[in-house]
């Protein structure tokens, strides 16, 4: 398992500051790449508003702080850097990312962790639909998505590997007014539909009617708690949370009943 030490969360005094105000995403990303090529290891992006593809494909030891709401596909295909978003993020955070860390200090939109191969996506608040769709693990590559608040329908859809964690902590603002404290709605519906690998750990009760038929619900076991012990302290540190009460659980484990749920679907 890849356990590269993350870059510091706070950029040091040597940070390169780029003002993204009004810049097209292509121009902004060219400036980021130019700064990296010139040796920057810490970059602060000011005035971000909707620019797509920030951090995409970047490699190695690098910290990026995003001030403002980044556009879709933040950190896609990324291999190693750490991105801190000091706001909400849009759709597709960490799309097909293979190493590094994205820490979203607000809420995230739909499909964070889409097709992720490795690294960590941490979301402090709530996340949208299809969190971790088609995540997969292979060899040393092991993707982890942790959502501090709640998720909507289809979490872990077609999930093939890695770890998804839903903590149900207060503090997210992504849900519609009046529905923020909808009891028992940590997961939305159709959790784990098509899931055939990996595990979803949920801190709190799971309504079996909200879970796909191909998914088993069990109390978390020692291996699950060990995995939480590896990643939750880093999650809590990223957002200044006390890890002990978060670790206390209790956690439920959602895992696939079969590694080939649709093996007989089209075979007559």
């Amino acid at each position, binding site marked *: 398992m890849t356990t590269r030490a993350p870059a510091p969360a706070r950029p040091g005094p040597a940070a390169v500051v780029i003002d993204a105000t009004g810049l097209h995403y292509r121009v902004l990303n060219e400036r980021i790449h130019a700064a990296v090529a010139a040796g920057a290891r810490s970059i602060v992006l000011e005035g971000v*508003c*909707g620019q797509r593809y920030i951090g995409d494909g970047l490699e190695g030891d690098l910290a990026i702080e995003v001030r403002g*709401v980044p556009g879709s596909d933040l950190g896609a295909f990324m291999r190693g850097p750490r991105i801190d978003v000091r706001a909400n993020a*849009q*759709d597709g955070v960490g799309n097909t990312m293979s190493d590094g860390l994205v820490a979203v200090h607000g809420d995230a939109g739909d499909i964070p962790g889409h097709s992720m191969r490795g690294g960590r996506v941490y979301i402090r608040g709530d996340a949208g639909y299809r969190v971790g769709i088609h995540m997969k693990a292979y060899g040393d590559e092991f993707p982890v998505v942790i959502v501090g608040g709640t998720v*909507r329908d289809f979490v872990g859809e077609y999930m093939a590997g890695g770890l998804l964690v839903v903590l149900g902590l207060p503090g997210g603002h992504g*849900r*519609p007014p009046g529905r923020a404290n909808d009891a028992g709605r940590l997961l939305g519906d159709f959790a784990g539909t098509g899931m055939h690998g990996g595990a979803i750990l949920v801190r709190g009760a799971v309504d079996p009617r909200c879970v796909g038929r191909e998914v088993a619900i069990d109390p978390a076991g020692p291996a699950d708690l060990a995995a939480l012990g590896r990643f939750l302290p880093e999650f809590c540190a990223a957002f200044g949370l006390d890890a002990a009460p978060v670790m206390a659980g209790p956690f439920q484990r959602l895992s696939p009943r079969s590694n080939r749920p649709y093996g007989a679907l089209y075979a007559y």
Partner: protein
Amino acid sequence: MLINVHRPSPVPDLDFKVPSGCGLTGLISQKGELLPGDAIYRSLCSMEERGNGLGAGYAAYGIYPDFAANRAFHLMCDTEDARRAAEAVLRRDCTIRHDEPIPTSPVKALKNIPVLWRYFLDIKPEAVERVGGGATEPDAVVRLVMEINRKVDGAFVFSSGRNMGIFKGVGNPEEIGEFFRIPAYRANVWIGHNRFPTNSVSWWGGAHPFGLLDWSLVHNGEISSYGTNRRYLESYGYWCTLQTDTEVMAYLFDLLVRRHGLDFDLAAQVMAAPFWTRIEREEDPEARRLSSALRAVYGGALVSGPFAVLVSDGKSLVGLNDRIKLRPLVAARKGSVSYIASEEAAIRCICPDPEALWMPDAGVPTVVTVEA
């Protein structure tokens, strides 16, 4: 019956394709304040990546105070002859109070610009009587719009409300916004659309918003039930002539809300019907019976496929997703102004610090209504 023989000339889109989806944005003042068009223009233009230059449009409410009591018809016509032919049909059924070209500014990039004309008019009482069966003025307007769009070759009514107007064409949001001088209008409800056509041709009439009476509607997605919905609507006198799937949703709102008296929550339950598994789980037997009845009665109005839509009748701004949330939608509020858009950044660029910002639930409408 004749059908419209107009053949829109599609713009080949193979060279334009980008991995994207349409962009939607809308805002409403609940206090009825007039908001400058500059805001919707900047919000829509911020989502440049969601379109590919093959369509953009705006709808604005409250823009014609001098003719607030009259119908405002916006027509697009291939030729001046087509406009005159459409005008003859209008004169048969309407008293025209004023008419003029829709004001535009030259934008070099725009091509195949049709003749664009607006008429402020009143439907004659005898035209309403001719519809028969206890018909009302709006029924006569629907019949008139359908007749022109089906039977007058090369002429289309693309806006037919009161004190509102739709402005749209083939171009990107900047070009269409500048062309129609959108930043110069002030409206209490705005919706905008940046198009990335997938399964339908790109032509001026196929751009969004789609409208009928006071309705305007913009859509991101694909309506795979288009054929079913279209046939269903035909049985109620709505004819789809604009060669884009979205058209059916504009007419479905008119049928369900205006004619059948459903509120937006019920209309959403028809179009984005809850799954039977969710209906079976419903604990309140009355709610279960209602949901089952809506699905049974309105099967032909179920909209399948991915969609996010914004719709307005001038009194409300409504956002609605398909029931499994296959397209993005974000809502926000600050003071008396509410926003709904495809992307949070499209809201933040015109309202940096909303009091509340959230993602609506799939299949559940976000309804913001002007205070009476």
